[in-house]
């Protein structure tokens, strides 16, 4: 356990990096993903097509490829992120947005068509029925999948370790190298760092889920 106190600074800053990476990317992905979901259900075909294309591309590309492309590919066309942290945020956000969109869309689809039909029958417009009838119900069903996307994102931040971001996984690689005789302790410390983020999130999701659940 000696090494734990020796490296507490590194582990703590690595944990904060992982956390901020997840939070910032999560917020960006939420905004972008909501926009995409709106486009996917909109009546305007090119917007629908664009959003579908986006989702299909990112759903079928490994996150690591997205990372490589943003870190070392786009510089060939004179684009550049100011720091590797932001590169990682961009890669994680762009990738995760596709899945946020999917989670939201499946939420909207899970609202029984009768609800929307009834809203339309009452004379509500597209905007009104979406805002006042469909989305409030969709939001409830969307809490668990969105929460799960968030947890998956928190774990996916580990890939940033391969791209000059000193997150928990990078700390693991550095410590594993320097403390080859204490590998188990190194792994335990780093895994604990991830669990501190994911387990309370999972718990919170369940609480919220139970609160807003619709009994049908």
């Amino acid at each position, binding site marked *: 356990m000696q090494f734990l106190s020796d490296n507490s600074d590194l582990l703590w800053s690595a944990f904060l990096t992982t956390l901020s990476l997840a939070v910032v990317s999560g917020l960006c992905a939420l905004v972008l993903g909501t926009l995409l979901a709106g486009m996917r*259900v909109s*009546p*305007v*075909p*090119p*917007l629908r097509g*664009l959003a579908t294309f986006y989702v*299909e591309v990112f*759903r*079928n*590309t*490994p*996150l690591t*490829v997205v990372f*490589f*492309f943003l870190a*070392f*590919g786009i510089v*060939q*066309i*004179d684009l550049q992120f100011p720091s590797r942290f932001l590169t990682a945020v961009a890669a994680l956000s762009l*990738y*995760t947005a596709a*899945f*946020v969109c*999917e*989670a939201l869309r*499946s939420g*909207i*689809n899970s609202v*029984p068509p009768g609800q*929307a*039909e009834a809203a*339309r029958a009452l004379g509500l417009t*597209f905007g009104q*029925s979406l805002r006042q009838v*469909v989305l409030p119900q969709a939001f409830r069903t969307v809490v668990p*999948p969105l929460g*799960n*996307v*968030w947890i*998956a*994102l928190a*774990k*996916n931040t*580990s*890939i940033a*370790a*391969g791209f000059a971001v000193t997150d928990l*996984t990078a700390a*693991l690689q550095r410590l*594993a190298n320097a403390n080859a005789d204490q*590998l188990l302790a190194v*792994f335990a410390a780093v895994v604990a760092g*991830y669990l501190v983020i*994911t*387990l309370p999130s*999972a*718990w919170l*999701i369940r609480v919220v889920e139970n609160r807003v659940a619709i009994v049908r």
Partner: protein
Amino acid sequence: MSTSVLFDVPGPRARRRQLVGTVVGGLVVAALVGLALWRLAANGQLEPDRWAVLFDPASGVPQALWEGLLNTLAVAAVGMVLATVLGALLAVGRLSDHAWVRIPVGVVIELFRAVPLLILILFCLLFLPTVGVPMTAFRALVLGLTLYNMAVLAEIFRAGILSVDRGQREAAFALGMRKTQVMTLVLLPQAVRRMLPVLVAQLVVLLKDSSLGFIVGYVELLRTARSLVEFFNFSFGSQYTFQLYVAAGLIYIVVNVALSQVARSVEKRTRRSAKAAAAADVELPADVQMGGGGAPTGQA
């Protein structure tokens, strides 16, 4: 599709508005594409010579990418088979009547879902050899992918088993079958058939995750592309970098879209067969599709 009931068949005014939206949206898309092409051209990225390298067998690039793809597929295939078998076993274990089976199995499933896949792979690569397990990059990758995916598939199978109509189970018991017989002869076959499309969809996730091999030094598709970049950078500067990354990305997309199509057609077939009236939804949850992570179910 409930989206269609969100708006009426458009009238003349709405149609005009939509036309405007279509045109504006189309212009925006066209402008973005044009901008990208312009930047690419301005940097000489569109020169045929730069792209020709991808198809020129004398450069070794097509062969190398093909080899890389085969390595990727090999990892994914082996990982998928192992994960499916182990996942089915775990699912049965988690539904066991005995608490001493159910609880440890639940813990195993939750544990492997809670740890980032990359950490799992590094654990296999760095730690397991210290306790005497012989390890190569290939094995570490397969093992990491298997452990994670078996946990995910176990949950999927469990849902599948539970979705089999209760009458099936009751009828089997009424015929005098034992618990094991009911599971292996009645429930599991129906669940697997129902879950077939989901299994194919999971293969896409696994294929994507295999790209983590580049971190542990397994020469799969992405690592091959990176090696080519390094090799050519050394001889010719970075003139092929962009093309090689694009090529690797496109190969993944093509293979995965093809697999998704397979999943869809499998789903159609299962739908048509009368035995599996309520075929499972082909869609995996969004977080599982993200790969590398997925969320713990928190039910242990």
